[in-house]
């Protein structure tokens, strides 16, 4: 029962620190803004907003969560307990993903109504958020300040944002190798149908990148946090 308890605690912390309140406001803003946009651009704006805000919100907040726990010296002692690093990473990613999926769903149905493709859309948001949050955690353990985190994370994530250029009409076949391409495809399935192959490609792509991010984040966590803590250094 260790994992469910940790997961629920993470959600509670995020709720208490105002993440849910702020995202109610932000979602309301997006809903109003999307209604104002001319119909022919609304779909593309919807895809872009879903990806760049609810989709990657975990990436934005994980830095603050990890840095705060470093400050409070929680991380030095946490792993003396039976709690595993893998559980820690999953609990953080999954809890932030709950907020991602929830806000994407609310924004989508409020602007575009309910459609039968929403399951694939939500799978897209789920996998996108899991990947970016875990990836963000790997970046966060390398940083000591919020500004440092945002600087480093924008450098690290630049390459993953390249496929967004297709909104301006620029495309490149190498973009197919990035998880963002899959994310955009799955998210766009909430607006128009995509082929089965596109769906399979996207899910496989996001899952593979998710596994890579997880392995990297776990290694980073051991190197930057656990080893230092066991050597008695302050984080």
């Amino acid at each position: 029962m260790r994992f469910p308890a940790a997961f629920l605690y993470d959600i509670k912390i995020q709720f208490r620190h105002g993440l849910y309140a702020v995202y109610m406001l932000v979602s309301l803003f997006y809903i109003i803004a999307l209604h104002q946009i001319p119909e022919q651009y609304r779909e593309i704006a919807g895809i872009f907003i879903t990806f760049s805000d609810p989709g990657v919100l975990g990436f934005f907040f994980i830095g603050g969560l990890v840095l705060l726990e470093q400050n409070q010296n929680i991380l030095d002692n946490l792993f003396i307990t039976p709690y595993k690093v893998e559980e820690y990473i999953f609990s953080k990613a999954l809890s932030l993903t709950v907020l991602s999926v929830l806000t994407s769903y609310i924004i989508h149905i409020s602007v575009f109504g309910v459609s039968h493709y929403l399951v694939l859309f939500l799978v897209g948001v789920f996998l996108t958020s899991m990947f970016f949050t875990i990836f963000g955690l790997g970046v966060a353990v390398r940083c000591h300040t919020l500004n440092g985190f945002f600087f480093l994370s924008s450098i690290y994530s630049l390459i993953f944002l390249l496929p967004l250029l297709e909104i301006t009409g620029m495309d490149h076949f190498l973009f197919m190798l990035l998880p963002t391409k899959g994310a955009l495809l799955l998210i766009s399935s909430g607006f128009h149908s995509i082929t089965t192959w596109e769906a399979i490609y996207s899910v496989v792509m996001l899952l593979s990148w998710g596994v890579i991010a997880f392995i990297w984040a776990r290694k980073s966590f051991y190197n930057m946090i656990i080893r230092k803590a066991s050597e008695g250094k302050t984080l």
Partner: protein
Amino acid sequence: MKSVFHLIKGDMKQIYRDPMLLISLIGPLLLILLVRFILPFATAQFALGAYNGLLASFFILLIPLLLGIMAGFIMLDERDDKMIDYFAVTPLSKQGYLLYRLLLPGVLTVLYGYIYLEWASPVALPILDKLLVTVMLAMEAPIICLFLVAIAANKIEGLALSKGVGLVVFVPFIIYFVSEPWNWAGGILPTFWPAKLFLIEGVHLMNSLFIGVLGAGIHIFYIIQLSKRFLRKTD
């Protein structure tokens, strides 16, 4: 005076260590270049010339937002690290510390605001309006910074708030799209007033003075209230 010198020296070291501070110097410059060279291209492409005043007021508000949030993040980190308690017992004092942290984004905003208004802005403002806009903008970065640290208890709440506070740069859209007497309701937000100067019809000296003086008063009110709250909170 000597204590301030130590802080500046510390910040110089910090710029070297934490490149985000360097970005805060470069970020607004990039924004100005974007408005100067890429925005005219985009407005011509999509026939947005009619919205020049709106765009000009929107982009200039991003300067204090960016600088204010960065200063806020520095203070959130320093408070979580208990650094502010240290500063409080030095000759600098907590008030001196606050003044220094707020002055820097304010001064930088004046500098960048000046370059923006003289060189990049898609609409030219009369000299009096330029002056009034600059005075208000200079107070906006400190307000945004103070808002984060006066309301948030720690960095994660600060992150959440930064997400919400970013929405104030969309106030020009309220002025533009909501009809005349009603849009004045936006006046409770500081960003309403400089944007209003960009968006009023025709040039009337008395109108500008009215908006500028009332707006500056509202900015001062925010600074005083939020500073008090911050000082109370860090006691």
